[in-house]
């Protein structure tokens, strides 16, 4: 079966417009979701999948309104359950290209369990997790990715929970594709979307997204021009982990079993950490890096191949049919211990 199982039919030449639905977009003006929607619509034509074979599934929250705005098939479901629903959909229809759109609350709080299982099963779905570190639709409570001490309506003296790191969570679940991108970098978003959508198995992208109403500039470290120059670490397969301004390049290296930031010119080339997407253990270390002590990794942390849940399931079905023929209820009903009364 082809990756995602969706390339059987040849797709027409699409443009972004073909993926815009007739619905009015109802996010707050200035919301980061607009940029994500635009990037997704722009990336779609490159997938080579007929649009009738594409399904967007979402849960509940601002991000989960997404399917209404895509001119594909879509299902806006219930809070946290999109990964489970998508699993059933893939099992019924392995020929479809399925996207899951979720947020930090939907995907990591109420739906955390389903996120764990869709990733470990490696169901072929592309998961876009919009992380704005806040509950927007319910008007501003702290989320599972909010920083400790976050003052919100529900935590007037500061939140008392430590945040979850979506990338570390995904890798810990056994995800086979994990990436991070930023809503203010359309080009990079498109690139990540294309790569994730082509991945064979579950693909997880954390999109750092701005909620300009309830958590404005939560990701300023990668928005602000100067800060971004200092902190953004672009991950490129086969390239060293270098970041910082051209006149002051810095490197992330392994010091014993811990990452450390150094001036690039202070270490020999042989000491540089070369990024390898196939190295999941290294990706787990990368996932934990963040400002201010470390740079903020952007890009594909890990991309590996592993057995895909629904493919194994369907192989079993095919084997059962080829070994013993298709099911026949009349035969089954009269099989085994029976007796006749005349």
């Amino acid at each position, binding site marked *: 079966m082809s990756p995602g199982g969706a390339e059987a039919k040849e797709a027409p030449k699409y443009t972004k417009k073909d993926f815009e*639905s007739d*619905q009015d977009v109802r996010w707050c003006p200035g919301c980061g979701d607009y940029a994500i929607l635009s990037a997704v619509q722009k990336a779609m034509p490159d997938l080579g999948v*007929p649009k*009738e*074979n594409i*399904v*967007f*599934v*979402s849960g*509940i929250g601002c991000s989960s309104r997404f*399917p*209404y705005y*895509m*001119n*594909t*098939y*879509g*299902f*806006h*479901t*219930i809070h946290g*359950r999109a990964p*489970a*629903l*998508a*699993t*059933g*959909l*893939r*099992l*019924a*229809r392995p*020929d*479809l290209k399925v996207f899951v759109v979720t947020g930090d609350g939907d995907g990591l709080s109420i739906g955390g*369990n*389903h996120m*764990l*299982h869709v990733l470990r099963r490696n169901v072929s779905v592309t998961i876009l997790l919009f992380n704005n570190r806040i509950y927007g639709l319910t008007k501003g409570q702290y989320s599972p990715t909010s920083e400790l001490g976050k003052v919100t309506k529900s935590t007037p003296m500061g939140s008392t929970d430590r945040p979850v790191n979506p990338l570390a969570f995904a890798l810990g679940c056994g995800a086979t594709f994990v990436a991070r991108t930023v809503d203010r970098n359309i080009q990079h978003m498109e690139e990540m979307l294309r790569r994730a959508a082509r991945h064979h198995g579950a693909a997880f992208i954390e999109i750092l997204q701005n909620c300009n109403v309830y958590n404005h500039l939560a990701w300023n470290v990668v928005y602000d021009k100067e800060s971004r120059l200092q902190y953004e670490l672009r991950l490129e397969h086969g390239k060293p982990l270098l970041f910082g301004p051209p006149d002051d390049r810095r490197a992330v290296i392994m010091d014993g079993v811990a990452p450390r930031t150094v001036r690039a010119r202070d270490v020999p080339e042989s000491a540089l950490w070369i990024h390898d997407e196939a190295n999941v253990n290294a990706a787990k270390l990368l996932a934990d890096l963040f400002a201010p002590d470390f740079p903020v990794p952007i890009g594909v942390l890990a991309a590996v191949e592993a057995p895909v849940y629904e493919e194994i*399931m369907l192989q*079993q*079905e095919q084997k*059962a*049919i080829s070994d*013993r*023929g*298709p*099911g*026949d*209820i*009349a035969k*089954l*009903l*009269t099989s*085994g*211990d*029976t*007796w*006749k*009364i*005349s």
Partner: protein
Amino acid sequence: MSETATPAAGGQKSLKELDRAVIRFAGDSGDGMQLTGEQFTTESAWAGNDIATLPNFPAEIRAPAGTLFGVSSFQLQFGSQRVYTPGDRLDCLVAMNPAALKVHVRDLKTGGLLIANTAAFEKRNLDKAGYAANPLDDPALAERYRLHKVDMTALTQEAVKDLPLDAREKDRTKNFFALGLVSWIYTRPLEPTLEWIGKKFTKNPAIAAANTRVLKAGHAYGETAEIFAEHYAVEAAEMAPGLYRAMTGNRALAWGILAAAQRSKVPVVYGAYPITPASDILHELALHKRFRVRTIQAEDEIAAVTAAIGASFGGAIGVTGSSGPGIALKGEAIGLAVMAELPLVVFNIQRGGPSTGLPTKTEQADLMQALGGRNSESPVVVLAPATPGDCFYVAYEAVRIAVKYMVPVIVLSDGFLANGSEPWLVPDPETLPPIDVQFRTSTEGFFPYLRDPATLARPWVRPGTPGLEHRIGGIEKQDVTGDISYDPDNHDHMVRVRAEKVRRVAQEIPPTSINGPATGDVLVVGWGGTYGAITAAVERAQAEGKSVASIHLRHLNPLPPDLGHVLREYRRVLVPEINSGQLVRVVRAEYLVDAVGFNRVRGLPLASDEIFDAITQLVGSPA
């Protein structure tokens, strides 16, 4: 029970003819009582009897040996006439240890046959069962019952002494001694059990030999030991001609789904999370991948139902199954299927509750949950099978209705139906009504919430169909267009449309079948697994000349269109249920009929005798 004695001829023991007998095998949960009972059931089926069974076991897999709560039992009634229930009072009790005796002896009829394994009646077991002295030595026990003390343990060891097995392995075959003995007492054929042993232990000839020898030793013991003066024959029942098989409710539900998958030519996705007593449906369906039935053992109950809904959205038949606690968790998702107007079948194998309750015991207390256990106005179709074999037809019907009306259907089975079995006349699948699934492909005038004028169903569109791309979800929709709508009048309209769609399923319901006179003194109204107990009680009352009839509801939502009319043809209405009065409340509310309930919530099937008493009281009561 009528008995006809045949005089003993030439040293042979006398053979008495019985119409029916009720037997219970009881022992420790590790004693193999369920297997013993199942094999005895198969033997009785071979003998041509009608049968009803009641397995009863502790929730713990291996409850501490010898304790009262560790007792496992298997009861069956078999007869030469129609058998509706596993029976109320026992003709024969096999007690493998003191705890089994203590728990079950009260159900044995005075003068009933009591067979006890004496070896287990030693100090430790007596202590655990709370006996100060060995009850088998109490003369009162032997006076009250026909007590047979048999050292099954020693006789078993003797029968297999030269086989290369350890003492424990040898001891574990003693349940087959009991089976052999009781098979002799009731003249059951041993062939089915011998065949079963051969198949089961092909890879372990020593175990096969041990079981065979012990079974035969038990049988021979009955024949030769001086203590059994007589044995019994139960003639084959007069049953409709045809091919029969033993059928349990859970297997019948699974097979009903297989039949629906084949007939509709649509694959099935069954999502489930392990839960007693529903897990066997998952196990059974997982065996039949050839039918294009895909099973998901989901991470939780919610994932199980949402995966099924996802499959339905994809154009497969989404089915999920659980028991009450799991159904509670699925509530929100069932609401999504109501809103999205997708087909969904939900099996609820009811058990004692609330909360964890009595996981292995039966109950009928989830009717209100099925009818209304979701937020807001969330109507679904509710069906209930009456017998284990009926589960096949009800599962099939649930799929047929779900796809025809684009609606969730809840099927209320229960622990008694799920594990109980009956001889089941195998149907010709060609006689089942067609399941005609038409996916919409035409783009002409398409809207996602366009409605079929007869059923009000919206079109079922498989993603992948060009030109029909659309979005659905849990938010309120504008009728026809399916666009998000917060319009007050549209919401009111949609609430009514969703209700009306379910109401229209009434056009699928045949006229109510009445067991008894079309008008009279008392009408007994039942639903679900109480069918047998109610029918037995009603037929007994009828035989005594009372003006009593019964009806059994398969459709609980919507109710049969003629039900109001039927109810008014009787002076009094009695509704027996294993809950504190749920259907009776619906009947009173819907029809303003002064129905009364008969309610016992003991984790066990209703006793036919008690229903009979309730009928008798009502017959004489003022209206």
